[in-house]
């Protein structure tokens, strides 16, 4: 049995009070609760303050390029689907630079868990506006205020066909742990948008801001209903933030539909193909 310590790497370099601390702790606790150890899980990190978790979390890990963690995660899953695969990414990383990958990973129902640190600002590059920054957001790159409307990540991935869509809050670790566990256990593509205050560069979307606007979905909420889920997701546009599983649907994941993997052996463990005659005949 592994414990939190086993998953703990180097001392984090996040700003004091940063939401990443809570997310980092929640991921570690979820992995412990799920009975994983660092040698039994694969994590891909994007680039940004979120991605810097690579040094603070022990696992078989790939610290990728900005925006590219999702395709890396898909590749790992296809090569060895016995490993749980998690992508730890940021909002600029995943909704900006890597937006195309997100859409297609969702529609492919690839069995990976994407945890987005959504602080609605670029932290590591010192405070430019992000795809989820509110309209009018003044930053170094938008000194007169952001013209674009923010991306609504929940609506976006629901429309793209994601089979597990959730929202968590870095200020409520216990609730986030439960969501992460459900997401990793889900068969197929899962996305958790984690509302994460950036204490240094985002003076608008603070802990206070979120505490006044988040609310937990209760047991009466029907997470299997896509229309309700879409409706719920649209609340973000009115600055209301539902927390919990917005949508979940049972559906075979991408690798479960590959005839190559029906034998249950992972791609990496399969016997080498040697029946070359079967190919040669086509060339005669």
């Amino acid at each position: 049995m592994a414990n939190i310590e086993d998953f703990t790497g180097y001392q984090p370099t996040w700003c004091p009070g940063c939401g990443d601390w809570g997310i980092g702790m929640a991921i570690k606790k979820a992995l412990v609760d799920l009975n994983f150890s660092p040698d039994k899980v694969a994590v891909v990190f994007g680039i940004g303050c979120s991605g810097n978790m690579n040094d603070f979390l022990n696992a078989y890990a790939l610290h990728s390029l900005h925006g590219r963690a999702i395709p890396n995660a898909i590749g790992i899953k296809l090569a060895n689907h016995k490993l749980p695969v998690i992508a730890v990414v940021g909002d600029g990383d995943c909704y900006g630079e890597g937006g195309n990958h997100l859409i297609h990973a969702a529609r492919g129902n690839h069995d990976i868990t994407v945890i987005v640190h959504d602080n609605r600002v670029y932290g590591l590059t010192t405070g430019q506006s992000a795809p989820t920054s509110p309209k009018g957001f003044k930053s170094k790159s938008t000194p007169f205020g952001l013209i674009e409307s923010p991306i609504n990540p929940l609506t976006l991935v629901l429309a793209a066909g994601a089979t597990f869509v959730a929202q968590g809050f870095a200020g409520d670790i216990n609730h986030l742990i439960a969501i992460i566990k459900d997401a990793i256990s889900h068969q197929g593509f899962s996305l958790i948008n984690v509302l994460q205050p950036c204490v240094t560069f985002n003076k608008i979307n603070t802990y206070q801001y979120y505490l006044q606007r988040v609310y937990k979905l209760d047991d009466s909420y029907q997470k299997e209903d896509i229309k309700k889920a879409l409706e719920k997701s649209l609340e973000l546009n009115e600055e209301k933030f539902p927390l919990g599983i917005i949508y979940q649907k049972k559906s075979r994941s991408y690798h479960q539909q590959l005839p190559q993997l029906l034998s249950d052996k992972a791609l990496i463990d399969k016997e080498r193909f040697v029946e070359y005659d079967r190919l040669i005949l086509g060339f005669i």
Partner: protein
Amino acid sequence: MIFTWKIGGEAGFGIMTTGLLFSKIASRLGYQILDYVEYPSLIRGGHNAYEVCVSDCQVTALNKEIDILVCLNRETFEKHKQRLTPQSFVIYDSEEFNFEDNFQKVVVPFKKILNDFGGQAVMKNTIALGASLALLGGKIEVLTNLIKEQFNKKGDEVVKFNQQFAIAGYEEVRKKYSSSIKNFLAEKEKKEEKMIISGNEAFSLGAVVADCRFYAAYPMTPSSSVLHTLASWQEKTGMIVRHAEDEISVINTALGASFAGVRSAVGTSGGGFSLMVESLSFAGVAEIPIVVFLAQRPGPATGMPTWTEQGDLLFAAFAGHGEFPKIVLAPGDQKEMIELTLKAFNLADTYQTPVIVISDMYLSEGHRSVEREWFEKIITNYKINRGKIAVSPQPQPKTENFLRYKITEDGISEKILPGTPGYFYQENSYEHLEDGHTTEEAKPRIDQVDKRNKKWATYLENDFQLPNFYGDKEAEIIFVAWGSTKGVLLEAQKKLNEKRVKTGFYHFNHLYPLNQEKVGFLFEKNKRYILVENNSWGQLGKILAMETGVKIEEKILRYDGRPIAVDDIVKNFLS
């Protein structure tokens, strides 16, 4: 004996399939072939042409003259008549068009036969194949058998329906042109079983034999048929083939699969490769093996998508930001494509870095005869070498951080597969310590840069190969070329030799990095070196100048989208 058969017609009417069938017919009758396709970047309305050069010995280049031109429309005649001689045969339908009596006419009533049997326009091709076979003295059974294999699944009736067009074309020529019939395709008594493979198929076969288990691509001419071929084999080979949303996803999915431990490759052309380049740099620093198949076409940007050029050598050699080792190979023909693809996967694993295999439209889409026995020998002799990947470390009492980037003499560190019990590690796009953690300190930075650079030294020592030399060692004229122009130069050498012009030829297929010292020594004073390239810059010349100080002033360059022709070379020496 050597002859050229060419068929042309409107795009979208089966010219490609027909050309390949002709190659297979010639091969099954015991001959060797080389073929080449011409088509515009559209699906309907343009002109498609397919040319097959047939001989009893190895064919390495296209001929200047066309001996049999099959015109399914007038455009074919107009476009290619300048390559006809008075002895050339033109197979055509005089109902469609006619021309003056300067070539040997073989009138085949395509339209009438189609009407008589109630066929569709695409079946003109079958009639044309039957007519060609009759004219060349081949037996019809080869063609009817091929048709049977093609349509067997659809039942006897469909087979017979299609066969009758072949027979009609065949009989038409036998009856009306019995005095013109040649014995060019008379069945050989001794036949070696041969495969007809394109450069792309050669790469695909190589990838399978090398136990590549993951291939990703986004369609892009002229690399797409690798995607089609490997995808169609998936259920047999067990390889996973992913058509991803863009080339950035393509290479990153493959890098993920490679990180997890399976041999992985991607394929693309220049534009798609441009999108992959950032990730190539990632593979370099994170030390992830990857084989990149780069089938060139004329650029820049969208360029001339369905034509050929060797314009991306410099780009491939220097692709990626920062300094990291990568290996660039460029096979000269289909056989070399198989051999170097097999080698590429071993090199990628051995050096844990990207290996680029360069092709171009001419090599990728053209077919050549490859003896089945030769290929089977290659398979038997191939040894998978995964280098220091998948080592099994001692079990640990407590889970430990594996030193993925341990400093070593040869620059290569051991890798255990993710999921190996008792360990964990990360592969990192940031500069890192031996344990994979990010660092910005000076000392480990220098250590890791030096470590990665050592891989090149190790490669040059152990796996680099000098250019192959063909021709006369004493010759004063030495051609210098790389990749797909090999066959054309060999043929040009033959032609020049007949005219008593002695030549030598250095063919480079290990393009980058170059062993400066060894390569530099190849070039002697007082000899006339001539660079031959299918581009406008002489890109190999630039690499040679940069890496070895050798400057080649004389150049034969072609960059109109067409492959270099034997005549482009030979004409310079026959004044």
